[in-house]
């Protein structure tokens, strides 16, 4: 722990000699307004800080170390060129309030990315502003609300399938909508009759994830959109799983009115231990007046050339970010799009789907597949075949760590008991998938021969299984000097 390594008098930073006279804040402020000391920060030399964080880095699993098959999270390779480009000073040191004339490169990049995302999704307009997929959802539902209000309608419900991401209901609730859950069919997809039965004039929108969280394409999507539209509702598309559709089908063509993109999932921007994400939102023209401001606009005709920022959207939902959103992620996403081109993007979708179906084909014999249909980019298994051994999904996940893998997503989607959700992504070579299958197979065998070995995993990590209950019952959320160090 940083704070325990601290020694009074050390520092890892040096300042140039001041070229202006020193100024004593005590001359301007009351003593009460000034701080005497900053004892909560550590005192360490540069080499100690470097060793500390280098050591911490070795305690992490990461895509660059191996397969990270988190379903619905999409951990694909993050190209190195993307990182290098985002660090160019013209991008990394640019300030959001500098005049547009001094930011033409960034504005052009934003404009190009917006247009490319619109083409990929079949949407008319795109805003890059939301800082994460969940904030994109919030923006989308806010636009839907503004649309209905503009038409003088007060609708109070949002329909969300039971297989949805957890953020969907929360985003609706933050917009003062009540959420009505609608059941998926036994085949794991949504059926038009279920939507028709729930679709009243009170319903503002249906939120749908396609492909859904079981990895299945919503085959009836067009008919479902027609049902919602016929009753005056709009359809929100959760774009988390867009990587399976690149160049194959476009949400806008299926009837979706508004959707968000997760740049980190589909366009290879890094996840960084939980963020930053970036959640651009695409809309059909009927929602364009409600886009967050500002909007990047290309100057035309007598206005001259170049790009500017447009605030003239009187019906806009306003701002969601202090500035333009996670702009450094736009650089990475654009580099990725530009590197792949139309054929490469389609190839990504094909290979992501190939990899998921290949894994499913290889695992089907030994593992229980709750809904056994051809999948898109991810597949869902369950621990049911291991029932007799007492080994659970969580145990399998922890044992996979011993075999050198980050575990798949566990216990999600909620509609599958003991779910193990695997997303290999397009960047994983076949050999990697075969080795992963071998590991899962070995664990299944262990579960029968030596279940305790699996139940007490992981064994080869720096830490054994962590006590999450204790953390929640007695929250310790910061280091304090008076507490004994460690246990």
């Amino acid at each position, binding site marked *: 722990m940083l704070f325990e390594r601290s020694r009074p008098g050390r520092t890892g930073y040096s300042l140039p000699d001041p070229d202006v006279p020193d100024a004593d804040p005590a001359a301007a402020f009351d003593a009460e307004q000034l701080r005497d000391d900053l004892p*909560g920060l550590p005192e360490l030399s540069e080499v100690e800080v470097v060793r500390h964080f280098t050591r911490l880095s070795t305690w*992490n699993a990461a895509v660059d170390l191996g397969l990270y098959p988190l379903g619905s999270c999409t951990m694909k390779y993050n190209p190195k060129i993307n990182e290098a480009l985002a660090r160019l000073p013209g991008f990394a040191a*640019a300030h959001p309030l500098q005049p547009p004339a001094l930011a033409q490169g960034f504005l052009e*990049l934003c404009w190009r990315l917006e247009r490319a995302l619109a083409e990929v999704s079949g949407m008319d307009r795109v805003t890059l502003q939301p800082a994460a997929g969940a904030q994109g959802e919030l923006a989308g539902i806010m636009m839907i609300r503004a649309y209905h209000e503009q038409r003088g309608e007060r609708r109070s419900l949002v329909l969300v399938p039971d297989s949805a991401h957890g953020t969907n209901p929360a985003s609706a609730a933050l917009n003062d909508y009540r959420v009505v859950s609608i059941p998926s069919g036994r085949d794991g997809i949504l059926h038009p009759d279920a939507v028709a039965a729930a679709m009243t004039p009170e319903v503002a929108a249906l939120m749908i994830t396609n492909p859904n969280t079981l990895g299945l394409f919503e085959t009836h*999507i067009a008919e479902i959109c027609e049902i919602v539209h016929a009753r005056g509702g709009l359809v929100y598309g959760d774009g988390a799983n867009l990587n399976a559709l690149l160049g*194959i089908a476009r949400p806008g063509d299926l009837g979706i009115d508004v959707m968000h993109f997760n740049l980190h999932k589909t366009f290879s921007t890094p996840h960084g231990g939980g963020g930053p994400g970036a959640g651009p939102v695409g809309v059909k023209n009927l929602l364009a007046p409600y886009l967050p401001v500002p909007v990047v606009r290309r100057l035309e005709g007598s206005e001259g050339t170049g790009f500017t920022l447009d605030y003239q959207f009187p019906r806009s939902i306003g701002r969601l970010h202090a500035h333009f959103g996670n702009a450094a992620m736009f650089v990475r996403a654009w580099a990725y799009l530009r590197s792949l*081109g139309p054929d490469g993007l389609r190839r990504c979708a094909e290979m992501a789907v190939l990899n998921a179906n290949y894994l499913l084909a290889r695992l089907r014999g030994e593992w229980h597949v709750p809904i056994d249909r*051809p999948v898109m980019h991810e597949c869902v298994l369950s621990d049911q075949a291991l029932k007799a051994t007492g080994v659970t999904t969580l145990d399998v996940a922890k044992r996979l760590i011993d075999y050198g893998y980050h575990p798949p997503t566990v216990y999600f989607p909620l509609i599958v008991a003991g779910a193990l959700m695997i997303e290999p992504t397009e960047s994983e070579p076949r050999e990697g998938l075969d080795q992963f299958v071998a590991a899962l197979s070995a664990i299944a065998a262990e579960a029968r021969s030596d279940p305790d070995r699996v139940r007490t995993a*992981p064994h080869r*990590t720096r830490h054994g299984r962590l006590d999450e209950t204790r953390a929640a019952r007695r929250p310790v959320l910061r280091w304090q000097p008076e507490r004994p160090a460690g246990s």
Partner: protein
Amino acid sequence: MTGDLPRYVPHTPDDVREMLATIGVPGLDALFACVPEKLRLGRALDLPRAASEQEVAGELAALAARNASAETHPWFLGAGIYAHYVPAAVHALASRAEFYTAYTPYQPEISQGTLQTIFEWQTMICALSGLDVANASLYDGASAAAEAVLLALRATRRSRVVVAHGLHPHYGEVLKSYLRALDTRLEWLPCAPDGRSVPVAPALDGDTACVVVQSPSFLGPVQDLRAAAEAAHACGALLVVVVTEPLSLAMLRAPGELGADVVCGEAQSFGVPASFGGPALGFLATRERFLRQLPGRLCGETVDSRGRRGFVLTLATREQHIRREKATSNICTNQGLCLLYATIYLSLLGRRGLRKLARLNYAKAEYLKSRVRATRGLTLPLAAPGFHEVVVGVPDTGAAALARALEAGIVGGLDLAPYEPGLGPALLVCTTELATRASIDRLVERLAA
């Protein structure tokens, strides 16, 4: 597709053939049989053709070169995003792929690097803010301020929000967006002529959930937080303090010690690249009794099966995973990579370095003020003391003054005309440690001319 394989996809034609055979389908098209024919795109996407790495690098370098930045110009523009020197070790460590290619630490046994960093960050934010608990970061300062207000609305079950003049105007806009659908009233207080907010007590009532005060304010002056806290608490409201330059907290007393119940804002200043405003680093800290109202992720200490100290994400029942529509907020991410930058930065500067840096930033601003006072045509319209950001009155218009500075190659600050027309022609000028005495002299000269 024809030609070379995309460089990020490893499959050879043989791989594809054999994998299709294992699946038992005749071709790639068959994998998409679940997508009805009429829903398929049926053409290639209309995007530029694939480019080599060399071409991509060239094109983006050309775009980057068309942006001014603190690396190309003497820079006096702040207003919520600040140009500071970032030690090389910050980039070197944060660029480690074990950090940036990791996901949310859902499997704590193999995510201790990320988790311990979050725990150390939470500890540092508690120290700077003077409060008990902090979360693992939010999108940016503006959404952190909005989340702080939502916290206060939940905690007090009241519906009125009073915002002191001087909140960053973009934060005010974000707040409006977040509250639009909820049954709340949002009201703004005027500020005194010296730049400090007026005493808030008369504006408050039993329906007020919180008072929001930014300090130093958008225009620079440090606010009287003790008075604001007393007024808020007298009517049962919370004091939410917004900080857009947390370096100031190394010089100014912790808002928590002055009575703030929530301290939130933007921590980009701590080593995070400006990057056109994002990704940024929202922070949020509060008192222990509001722990379960705190949005976003939290990292907690625990022990493992062998009794060793370790860290996990905790109290997730407030999150969207479990209660869904009853979740505290819809946030399901944090700014992990940005908080890593900040934690490394704060570790390097440490207890003494951060204070010295704050003092240097303050001295640069005081020097600027002394130059402005000595220069005919320029004024300091706000008398209250600030940190490193100053409103400078200029003779003609802010735009003309900025244009004169730019002719000398200097980005001179923010024209306040769109934000504070009542001030007359004025700029918001920021001096960090990057501002040299010579560039300050030159700027002042150009603004006056």
